[in-house]
């Protein structure tokens, strides 16, 4: 049986800095997952990813990552790997957690 599609965001790494980025509704790449577009529909997600792939000079290696709406109605990561990607490493206060 095909797995049920779960909501996704499109995420990638910035070409210049390597920093984690997300695709927002307006087609911009943003650094904060809370501003990312959340796709409930599989086809929509796949075509948005294909479109994201065409911004190839902005980022490296876009993919779909599970996300869910939080209490404020904004996307939150689901898997722990994606949680770390929204923050940075846990051994130093570096990366996103320090920049925001």
């Amino acid at each position: 049986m095909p797995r049920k599609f779960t909501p996704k965001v499109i995420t990638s790494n910035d070409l210049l800095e390597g920093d984690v980025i997300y695709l927002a509704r307006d087609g911009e790449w943003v650094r904060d997952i809370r501003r990312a577009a959340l796709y409930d529909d599989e086809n929509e997600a796949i075509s948005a990813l294909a479109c994201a792939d065409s911004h190839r000079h902005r980022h490296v290696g876009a993919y779909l990552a599970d996300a869910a709406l939080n209490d404020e109605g904004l996307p939150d990561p689901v898997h722990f790997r994606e949680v770390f990607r929204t923050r940075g490493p846990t051994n130093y206060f570096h990366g996103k957690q320090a920049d925001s």
Partner: protein
Amino acid sequence: MYRYSQFDDEFVRTRVAEFRGQVERRLDGSLSEDEFKPLRLKNGLYLQLHAYMLRVAIPYGTLNSRQMRQLAMIAERWDKGYGHFTTRQNIQFNWPKLRDVPDILDALADVSMHAIQTSGNCIRNVTADHFAGAACDEIEDPRPTAELLRQWSTDHPEFQYLPRKFKIAVTGSPNDRAVTRAHDIGLRMVRDDFGKPGFEVLIGGGLGRTPMIGMVARAFLPKDHLLPYIEAILRVYNLAGRRDNKHKARIKILVHETGRDIIRERIEAEFKRRLAVFPGIDPQLMEDIDASFRLPEFIDRPQDEHEGLLSSDPEYREWAEQNLTDHRQDGYRIVTVSLKAIGATPGDATSDQMRAIAAIAEKYAYDEIRVSHEQNIILPHVPLASMPGVYADLKAVGLAAANIGLISDIIACPGMDYCSLATARSIPVAQDIAREFNALELEKRIGHIKVKISGCINACGHHHVGHIGILGLDRAGVENYQITLGGDGTETAAIGRRAGPGFAADELLPALRRLIDRYLETRLDDRETFLACYRRLGEAPFLAALYPDNPRYAGEQL
């Protein structure tokens, strides 16, 4: 130490200039990532979880103070003020920006360093015993051999596109500190019946998803046959190694699938052909290499201050007991500088610490620095007369942790704090273990033990050869840690056995406590190490300690 020749220099500079052009073309859009990725990887530039990562080769882990200072400068100017020393005796910078990388590579070239062949399916940085030239048990310094292999393998046209990456380690001592049995090729210096030094050649070792201990391809290989023999191995592998499946492409799988005897025969046949046309190594070249590794002039100096501190300063004594190793020369010691201060990230050094190490090496220790695969720094030749000064200067920058070989001296790969391939974190696990056993003041009592942690099956943290190995996995979206027991990376190499079901992150420390308690209760006396005790008793009592509530293991009490 060996200096790059003009050829090396030009080669490295040309590569940097090429890469500068490639980065520009990536940035202006003329190269796609698909086109650019293999080019950046050829220059050691990876993309990790949060940023790019630059892996810089440190040939056989040997550095001088000038190079160490340059690494410190790079970390400060283009990174976040620290570097990570790895199990392959390399250094990694975790936060470089793409635009800056060509400048970083130029800065490396200024001190004869580069990041070439630190990635990709080629012969990687050759590693060696970090006590080379200083060890008491050494037959001969392995570094001239490692240097010869470095020169031979750098940009070798035939071996740039192997089925998979290829790692060579060399040791000149019977006590194997270079984990030669877990490398694609391991070279162990031995003597023949006439006392002449040569190599025992091991092939097909490796960790990763299919861990294997290398087999003896040749019990004795004369030194001057080394290059044709290694070429023969590489040739056989290059032609017959699998290219259809990345996970089956290492030479260990070829050896395993083809059979040891057949592989040995093929290598010997190829070796004969190559030997027939091998002109021999240019004696001038070998002489130059040998000369650059000549030992410094050792001098006898009074050690009164050192002796005095041993009796008056307990902290100094503890450090000296734990971190110093006998040197081939009386009045000298090998100093292991621990990069494992309690709670620190294993293998990390700040720019200030790197500069302090450089200054100490220059002032007291013949300007020689080594990186060990255990992620510590070695000062190979330190006179006891200078030891108090070395200690004081290390202490001033937080580098005087007295824990070499103890439970807090852990190897840990970057894991999911940095690595995009990781399935779980390893650094916090190492930090927690170090803090826990230190707080319990058990470290000294436990004594010699090797704990090694990897954040995924690729095993960069060498967990298979840890007395206690820990592998971080993703179990249904939660970090989970699998324990292996009885691994050994030395001349008595063994792959650890998987204990049983993994542990959730918060169950891991209590499980390790039970395991260690069992060892402390059951060891013969305090000279019996964890590994010796495990070998004597077998795994049953340790499994019972790990899984007290699991009838499958708990039944087997002592």
